[in-house]
C-alpha cells in the first residue's frame, strides 16, 4: 500500500465510511464512489447468494497495480479499492472504489477505469447460488 492508495480484501463487511475517509482531502473538489451490490437475479433466474473467493496474494498485487496506474494516468489524489470475500446475500456490498480528485472528471474516469480493470484482471471469483443450483460466473465452456 502506498501513501495515496488503500487496497484490501476482507471477509468482514466492507466499510463505505472507511473508504471515504481514506480518500478525503482538503485539496479535493470531489470524491467519486462506486459501490457494487449483490442483485437478486441474473438473466431472470433468482439469485440467493454470491460466494466470492480469491487468490489473495495475487489479487492484492493486481489491485495495487490498478491503484498505481489510476494515480499515474489520471489527475487524482487518492484511491481506495476494497473487495469482500465469502458468502454475500442480496443487497450486500462486494466492492467499493473511492477516488478523490481536484476536479470531478478525473475522479469519475479513474473510478470507472478501476472497476472495469478489476473485473478483467483481479483473480477473484464469484459463484452464483440459485434455489436449484450454483454456477461459477464467467466460466462457461
Amino acid at each position, binding site marked *: 500500500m502506498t501513501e495515496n492508495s488503500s487496497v484490501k480484501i476482507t471477509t468482514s463487511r466492507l466499510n463505505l465510511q472507511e473508504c471515504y475517509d481514506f480518500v478525503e482531502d482538503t485539496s479535493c473538489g470531489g470524491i467519486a464512489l462506486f459501490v*457494487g451490490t449483490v442483485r437478486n437475479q441474473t438473466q431472470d433466474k433468482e439469485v440467493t447468494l454470491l460466494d*466470492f*473467493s*480469491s*487468490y489473495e*496474494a*495475487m*489479487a492484492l*498485487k493486481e489491485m495495487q497495480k490498478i491503484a498505481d496506474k489510476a494515480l499515474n494516468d489520471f489527475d487524482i489524489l487518492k484511491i481506495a479499492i476494497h*473487495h469482500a470475500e465469502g458468502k454475500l446475500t442480496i443487497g450486500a456490498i*462486494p*466492492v467499493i472504489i473511492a477516488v478523490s480528485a481536484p476536479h470531478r472528471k478525473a475522479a469519475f474516469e479513474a473510478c470507472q477505469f478501476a*472497476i472495469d480493470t*478489476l*473485473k*478483467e*484482471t*483481479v*483473480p*477473484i*471469483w*464469484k459463484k452464483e447460488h440459485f434455489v436449484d443450483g450454483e454456477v*461459477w*460466473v*464467467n*466460466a462457461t*465452456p
Partner: protein
Amino acid sequence: MQIQVLLFGITRDIIGENKLSLTISSGITVKKLKQQLELQYAELNKYNYSVAINEAYAENDTEINNSDTVALIPPVSGG
C-alpha cells in the same frame, strides 16, 4: 522436478483439490504445462484459463522453474 499448482474457481471443482502436486521437466513452458494438465484433466481444455507464476500472469512461452509458485487462473468474476 516436483511443483505445486494452486487451483481456484472452476479449476478447483474440475480437479477436486485446492492444489495439485505435479512432476514436470525443469524449464517447461506454460503452454506445455497446460498440455500436460489437460491430458490428465480433459475438462480443463473447455475453459479459457490463464496461468500465474509467482503471483503474476504468465505468457504461454514463460518457463517454469523449481522454486516458482504456479497457479491456474480461470476467467475472473470479481466486482
